[in-house]
């Protein structure tokens, strides 16, 4: 146990920043930016401190004792009546090897998005206030271990995101913003229903021996806490766990976004301003897969096993479909958006393997996709800032005028393709190795490998169309990267190369948790089989 409440600090620091930003007068635009930069910078420092103090041997996943940096306080505590038990909701946060990489990712991506926001000049104060509020929501989702708390953070992100896309976005921003809002809210209501169902199916025993219903996720994972009459309790022969699993999965799948719920993503990405695209692709998409790993898998392990094939199938569809769509785009940003759909498919495929290799690959892929795609969107942003177009056919030969920039682009594109020695390769290799080892999904895995080929095709094609060839005279006075842009790209490139060459630190970070998760799901099968109805 640590005495410093790192997780609360990293989560609520942005709220403090938001209050300062709101208190500053409108004219102090510099101060507003620097406050935001300072807050996100401190978050990176805290994240680094957390990593430095992290104990690599602890597993987490379902045991409270092996979670780290845990903070648990009574939050809502309502004494019961005879007809309704006590209500107890804790402020309960902690991390394990699955949330730690994502916490780090969020800190880094948010920091870089802040640098990228430097050029925002419209309604600065509102922008950075909402940006910081969004930041709190993202951090909160990754650290919350109480379902109620998780849900509050989850929903907290919706509104800032709606405004960030809707006010600072492109020409069709209103449409994109409301579409994003409606889709994600639709997803969250499924999550909400399952949450309430689980609440009535789980009781924990208090110190004085009384049993209370609870929103504690870890208690929900333990069959001993089940209430026999609960609709989502495995002890109840007529339980609705199967339907609930699908509802929950759909809720998270909208966020990933998984085919066929992906249509909001290209719109949102195309209209969002660059920093928000970076946040959206870098962090928000990960929440869907994180939710599945954190909640669906350990709370419904038996159904996860039953449905592993379907998860892999949707992973495969995402990979191939996303890649094909990406190939058909002329809009640079839309192409990157569809490549995200494709890359998130790898995460699904890796998770569906249910073995250490595959899930490690999936978690690492979340991290890598976060950094790589953040970079890709920054790249589009750099070009768009200078030319105000994203039509790939309108370019050509940009490399002549912007050699350094093109070098950066090449690294990012190759990382996205999965070239060895860059980070994308490690995670994709892990995913394929893990998934290939499972007989059940081997065929799907083999088909999915076509995604790598398609990925190479659309990426290289884009590279050729935009950066190589003869210079389009229209862009004769393009300028290369400036200092601020270096500041955005260099950290990301370093991370991409570092993980590509030496992935052990990241893999060690998640290893014991992934092992715990794999073992938990495998063991659960025997436990759940023993109940009637299965």
């Amino acid at each position, binding site marked *: 146990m640590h005495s410093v409440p790192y997780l609360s600090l990293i989560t609520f620091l942005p709220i403090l920043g938001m209050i300062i930003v709101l208190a500053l007068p409108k004219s102090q635009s510099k101060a507003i930016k620097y406050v935001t930069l300072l807050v996100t910078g401190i978050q990176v420092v805290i994240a680094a401190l957390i990593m430095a103090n992290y104990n690599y041997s602890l597993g987490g996943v379902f045991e409270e004792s092996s979670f780290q940096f845990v903070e648990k306080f009574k939050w809502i505590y309502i004494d019961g*009546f005879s007809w309704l038990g006590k*209500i107890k909701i804790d402020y309960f946060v902690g991390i394990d090897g699955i949330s730690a990489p994502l916490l780090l990712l969020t800190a880094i991506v948010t920091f870089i998005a802040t640098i990228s926001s430097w050029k925002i000049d419209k309604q600065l104060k509102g922008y950075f206030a909402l940006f910081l509020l969004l930041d709190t929501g993202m951090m909160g989702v990754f650290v919350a271990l109480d379902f109620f708390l998780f849900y*509050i953070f989850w929903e907290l992100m919706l509104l800032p995101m709606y*405004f960030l896309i809707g*006010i600072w976005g492109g020409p069709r*921003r209103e449409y994109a913003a409301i579409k994003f809002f409606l889709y994600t809210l639709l997803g969250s209501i499924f999550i909400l*229903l399952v949450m309430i169902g689980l609440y009535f199916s789980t009781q924990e025993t208090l110190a004085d021996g009384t049993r209370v219903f609870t929103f504690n996720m870890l208690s929900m994972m333990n069959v001993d806490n089940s209430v026999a009459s609960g609709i989502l309790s495995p002890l109840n022969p007529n339980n609705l766990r199967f339907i609930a699993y699908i509802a929950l999965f759909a809720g998270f799948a909208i966020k990933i976004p998984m085919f066929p719920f992906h249509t909001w993503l290209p719109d949102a990405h195309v209209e969002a301003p660059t920093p928000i695209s970076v946040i959206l692709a870098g962090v928000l998409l990960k929440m869907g897969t994180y939710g599945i790993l954190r909640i669906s898998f350990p709370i419904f392990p038996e159904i996860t096993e039953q449905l592993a094939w379907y998860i892999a199938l949707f992973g495969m569809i995402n990979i191939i479909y996303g890649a094909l769509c990406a190939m058909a785009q002329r809009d640079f940003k839309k192409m990157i958006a569809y490549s995200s759909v494709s890359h998130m498919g790898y995460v699904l495929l890796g998770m569906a393997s249910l073995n250490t290799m595959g899930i490690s690959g999936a978690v690492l892929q979340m991290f890598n996709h976060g950094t790589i795609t953040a970079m890709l969107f920054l790249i589009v942003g750099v070009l768009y800032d200078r030319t105000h177009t994203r039509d790939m056919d309108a370019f050509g030969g940009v490399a002549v005028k912007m050699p350094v920039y093109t070098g950066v682009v090449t690294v990012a594109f190759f990382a996205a393709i999965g070239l060895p020695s860059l980070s994308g390769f490690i995670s994709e290799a892990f995913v394929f190795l893990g998934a290939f080892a499972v007989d059940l999904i081997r065929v799907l895995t083999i088909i999915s490998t076509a995604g790598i080929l398609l990925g190479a095709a659309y990426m290289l094609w884009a590279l050729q169309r935009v950066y190589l060839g003869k210079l389009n005279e229209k862009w004769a006075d393009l300028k290369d990267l400036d200092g601020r842009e270096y500041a955005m790209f260099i950290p990301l490139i370093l991370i991409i190369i570092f993980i590509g060459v030496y992935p052990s630190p990241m893999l060690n970070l998640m290893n014991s948790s992934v092992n715990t998760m794999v073992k938990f799901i495998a063991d659960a099968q025997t436990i759940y089989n023993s109940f009637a109805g299965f």
Partner: protein
Amino acid sequence: MNTEQLLSDIGFIKPEIAIAITLVVIVVVDLIMGKNKKALPYISIAGLVITGLLVIQQFGTSVSVFKTSPSTSLLVIDNFGLYFKIIILLASLFIIFFSMASNEIKSTYARHGEYYTLIFGMILGMFLLSSAVDFILIYLSIELLSLSSYVLAGFVKNSLRNSEASLKYVIYGGVSSGVMLFGISLIYGLTGSTNLYEINSLIQLQNFPVVTLLIAGLFVIVGFGFKISAVPFHFWTPDVYEGAPLPITAYLSVASKAAGFAVLIRFIKITFVDSIDEHGFWQLISVVDWRSIIILLSILTMTLGNFSALWQDNLKRMLAYSSIAHAGYMLLGLAVLSNEGITAIMLYFLIYLFMNLGAFFVVMLIANKIGSEDIDDYKGLGRSIPYLGVSLGIFLVSLIGLPPTAGFIAKIYLFIALVDAKMITLAVIALLNTVVSLYYYVRVLRNLYLVQTEEKRPAIKMSLLNSIILFLLVAPLIIFGIYFTPIVNFAKSSLSIFGF
């Protein structure tokens, strides 16, 4: 009933007496002071505060007063009724402040005496309605409430839409109260009693023709449904809400609805419930399947409310449909027929009070300035009215039911009650309705913030008093959204209905 009994009973209706005295004082002061009406709102506020103290004092009592026979009485004083009285008082207090800020009401300065008198007439009607257990008194207090509100809805005489609203209100109100009276007379004809408790025991003992009882019950519900604007008795709502002066619209949408819900819940619970099991579920007397009827009403109400709101261009009218939808959500709590469901309704009302009044308050302040409630006239307004805009945002987000606002707590308690009763389908329908509602609430925010206009939008200067009022409406939504233990405890402790 002897004099001694009467005198001691009068002690239990001190709040109602305080209301009546305030009403008289307003009339007298209005006559004495002549043209100077400045004191009237302050007298009203003082009257409300005193009444509030008297109500709080009564918490925990559970008695029946004004006995008509050893076993029957006209009124009961119990925590359930007192809770709704608190809500009505809070709403009234806010409405007095709203009226002080409203241009529409200011334009009727010469008739302010009548205005405040009528408001207190409404309050008296609602107070009696919240604790009445005899059909005669229920009917009389509904009429008292209705007649006062008919006049208030058309209070700005030279406004055409005010008069239209008032006339429509009278016509619909007249019909529904007629139907209700018919229902009451049918029940009286069957059972020979007008007292809810007595009717309950008679239904349990004897076999009355089910069809007649069903029809009579439904007719009575028409009257209550009119007050809470449940579909299909809602037709007056959009027109009246749009046409009436804004403070009155806000008042009708909260206080009058609260009284309607109080009497509806009391009617169902006392008249048709046999017993309550250990989990808090009500066992109905097996004559009429009220659960299905209320479920049907509820689904119709929220779905129609939400879908109609989608097409509205006038914000007042949109909020009218939204308030219909919210009545639908609240009916869900009744459909569960359990203590938990009722707790959820009571909690919902407390939160609804702040968010709905708040939304109307902002609309009124904006209308004072730009003279329109049209959603399209809100385009690009967000930047020139930072505080009002953000507050309106919080109210609307709370009405949608998103965390971390209190609106989420209100909704989640309803869903908890529904899931506990294993009414999952209904919960899904309600949740899908929430998604629909997102669209029209967000449309207002879209026009405020997302749409850019070239023309310069006016800034709105707010007086200190209005800022405080706005803060008092916003703050609870955020505070209770994050820490809701106190209001849940308050709602739970106020659940007891006399006799159960």
